[in-house]
């Protein structure tokens, strides 16, 4: 085991160590100590991740100019049969190393930031324990060698998200949000699980790379077998992959499984930054990327469905984002929209020369998005920390009192709006160009969404920092400590310059370096759309005025629908509360109490009692009736005997 493998192992192990220490002995430590333990372990992993990434991209991962996968560790954890087993291990390949970087950096930033943000909260050590648990699970997820390993960590990620959303466990809304997040993703995971079962049964393996091999090689008997059966016009393989994607859609909040993400903002804001913006929610994208060869080569129909779902979600979420007034919810819908971007980028990609740009673009966007979205959330957290509200009503004109926050927030907004040369410009550019090549319709949707994105982000920006005049004597001075400012600055640097990385030469679908196309003429349109969006936002929200309300009332029907998130939540509530609870749960409980218990069990008991009541009078206590029975019996027997033997 060389030093790279060891570092990779340490990256995964350190967070769980700190979780164990904090979880078991956290209540004996002071808040400061527990916070430092958490930060120290995560910062160490970030440094190790940089080391491993450097090693992988430039040293050991590079074989003949191609990035090949490298198994750093693998051992059998649970054996089902000779061919099926759950292996735990660490695989290093372009996407997993990239994810390691993203996760460790964002996570360590969030850890540091939380030192300031969560100062003085109850259960401080528990918060850090949960954060460590989450980091561990997420890291374990991305380095998974085995599809079941991914499922395991997938669930762990879900539960740590549940615990963190429900961190303020005395708040009913937080409880409800935590439950909702877990249950919706669990429902999606059901699809994932069945997908895994189908894949594993048909390929006789649970190993990612074996599955990919067996399902992509031309003439593979497994592939032939798998695609032989079809259902509703799609092969069993496509169905299996779509089921797997369902799991991904749940985690990545794709329509219609997106409903949990906005509510998840009930958690502490740093948590939203880490889990619900940068890392966990992209797990679905990562899952599809991990199985990308299978999708692209053997089930392009499934991939196309993913592309359309992604495109729709991107637009849908962006529209809702324009109407929300809770700044974290705006960010949440923006996250959904951006992840959908990544998703449809994967969807429009294919296998073969010139078709794989979408893959790289998607991963690139994932990478840059992590920086600017985490930054946006942390910035929003700083704002909330200062004004103690999530609603836009209480904000405005904060640019003087929160200078650092203002500046970094602006960078992030420019990045997400796709203004060159900030990070988002490059990745979005790549996505749109690859969409234009294969699915023009999706390209136009993406373009329009891009404009919307610029609009609602700058609506947010102006609404927070401008809109109202700067108050003369504000008590909202930036009271944040270095702990909150340093992460903002570091992420700001990332958001500004991450796009300049030649991403294609590191991450591509087949490991070969790929030059992302860059056409000046092409990028005019997206940039222009973005600038128009910003301009409209400035007109409407740069200063306090009446225009937004007028516009809203002009299209009030549509506005209301969007404001109410197109009533998706209500539909879900109807299905769960009314249909499942009232039409399934309640009848099941009633059936059990009344029919099974009442009719069968108590019924048989009552039959026994009734029978005994019916024959009880024979035991009347009357001597004469007893003797009468006796005599009757004697006579009968005597008669029988005599007749028999005469």
């Amino acid at each position: 085991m060389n030093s790279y493998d060891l570092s990779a192992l340490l990256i995964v192990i350190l967070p769980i160590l700190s979780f164990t220490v904090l979880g078991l002995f956290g209540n004996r430590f002071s808040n400061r100590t527990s916070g430092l333990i958490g930060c120290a372990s995560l910062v160490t992993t970030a440094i190790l991740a940089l080391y491993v990434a450097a090693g992988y991209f430039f040293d050991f991962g590079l074989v003949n100019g191609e990035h090949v996968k490298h198994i750093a560790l693998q051992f059998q954890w649970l054996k089902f049969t000779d061919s099926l087993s759950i292996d735990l291990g660490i695989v290093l390949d372009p996407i997993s190393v990239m994810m390691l970087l993203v996760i460790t950096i964002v996570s360590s930033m969030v850890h540091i930031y939380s030192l300031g943000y969560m100062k003085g909260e109850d259960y401080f050590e528990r918060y850090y324990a949960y954060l460590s648990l989450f980091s561990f699970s997420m890291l374990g997820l991305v380095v998974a060698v085995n599809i079941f390993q991914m499922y395991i960590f997938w669930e762990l990620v879900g539960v740590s998200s549940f615990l963190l959303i429900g961190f303020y466990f005395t708040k009913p809304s937080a409880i409800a949000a935590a439950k909702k997040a877990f249950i919706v993703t669990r429902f999606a995971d059901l699809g994932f699980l069945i997908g895994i079962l189908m894949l594993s049964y048909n390929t006789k393996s649970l190993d990612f790379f074996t599955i990919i091999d067996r399902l992509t090689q031309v003439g593979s008997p497994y592939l032939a077998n798998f695609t032989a059966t079809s259902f509703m016009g799609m092969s069993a393989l496509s169905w299996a992959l779509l089921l797997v994607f369902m799991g991904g859609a749940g985690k990545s909040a794709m329509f219609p499984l997106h409903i949990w993400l906005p509510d998840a903002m009930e958690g502490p804001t740093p948590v939203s930054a880490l889990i619900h913006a940068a890392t966990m929610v992209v797990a679905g994208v990562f899952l599809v990327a991990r199985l990308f060869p299978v999708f692209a080569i053997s089930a392009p129909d499934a991939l196309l469905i993913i592309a359309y779902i992604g495109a729709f979600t991107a637009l849908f979420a962006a529209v809702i984002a324009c109407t929300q007034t809770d700044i974290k919810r705006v960010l949440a819908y923006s996250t959904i929209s951006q992840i959908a971007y990544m998703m449809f980028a994967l969807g429009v990609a294919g296998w073969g020369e010139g078709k794989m740009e979408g893959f790289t673009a998607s991963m690139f966007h994932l990478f840059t998005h992590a920086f600017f979205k985490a930054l946006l959330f942390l910035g929003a957290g700083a704002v909330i920390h200062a004004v103690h509200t999530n609603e836009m009503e209480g904000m405005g004109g904060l640019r003087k009192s929160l200078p650092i926050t203002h500046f970094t927030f602006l960078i992030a907004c420019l990045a997400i709006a796709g203004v060159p040369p900030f990070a988002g410009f490059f990745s979005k550019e790549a996505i749109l160009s690859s969409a234009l090549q294969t699915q023009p319709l999706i390209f136009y949707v993406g373009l329009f969404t891009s404009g919307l994105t610029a609009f609602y982000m700058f609506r947010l920006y102006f609404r927070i920092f401008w809109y109202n005049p700067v108050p003369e004597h504000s008590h909202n001075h930036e009271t944040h400590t270095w702990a909150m400012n340093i992460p903002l600055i570091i992420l700001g640097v990332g958001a500004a310059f991450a796009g300049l990385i030649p991403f294609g030469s590191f991450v591509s679908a087949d490991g070969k370096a790929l030059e992302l196309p860059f056409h000046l003429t092409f990028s005019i349109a997206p940039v222009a759309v973005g600038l128009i969006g910003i301009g409209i936002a400035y007109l409407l929200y740069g200063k306090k005025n009446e225009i937004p309300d007028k516009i809203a009332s002009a299209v009030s029907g549509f506005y209301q629908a969007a404001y109410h998130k197109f009533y998706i939540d209500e539909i879900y509530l109807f299905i769960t509360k009314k249909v499942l609870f009232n039409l399934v749960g309640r009848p099941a409980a009633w059936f059990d109490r009344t029919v099974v218990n009442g009719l069968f069990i108590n019924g048989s008991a009552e039959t026994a009692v009734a029978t005994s009541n019916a024959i009880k009078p024979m035991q009347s206590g009357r001597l004469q009736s007893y003797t009468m029975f006796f005599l009757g019996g004697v006579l009968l027997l005597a008669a029988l005997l005599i007749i028999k033997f005469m």
Partner: protein
Amino acid sequence: MEQVPLSHILILSSTLFFLGVYGFFSRRNLITMLMSVELILNSVNINFIAFNKYLFPHQLEGIFFTMFIIVVAAAEVSISIAIIINLYRRFKTIDIEDTTTMKY
């Protein structure tokens, strides 16, 4: 000596027996039921003596059994009367229809 046919004697005793049975079933008074039992016992006694006399004149077994039955009947009656009196004290009646506590 010309004898009464055995079957006539048996018919006598069974008549007596079933009279007793009828009395035992239909009477509601414990003492009258006891009397019916006496009738039944006596019909048996007649049978014993008759069989001894007609069929096995060289033995005395029938006579012995009759004697024992008489003695047992005496014992039985004394106990029964004791029970009846006790019952009467408790229920103030010896009507069998009213003393049905030993049921179910």
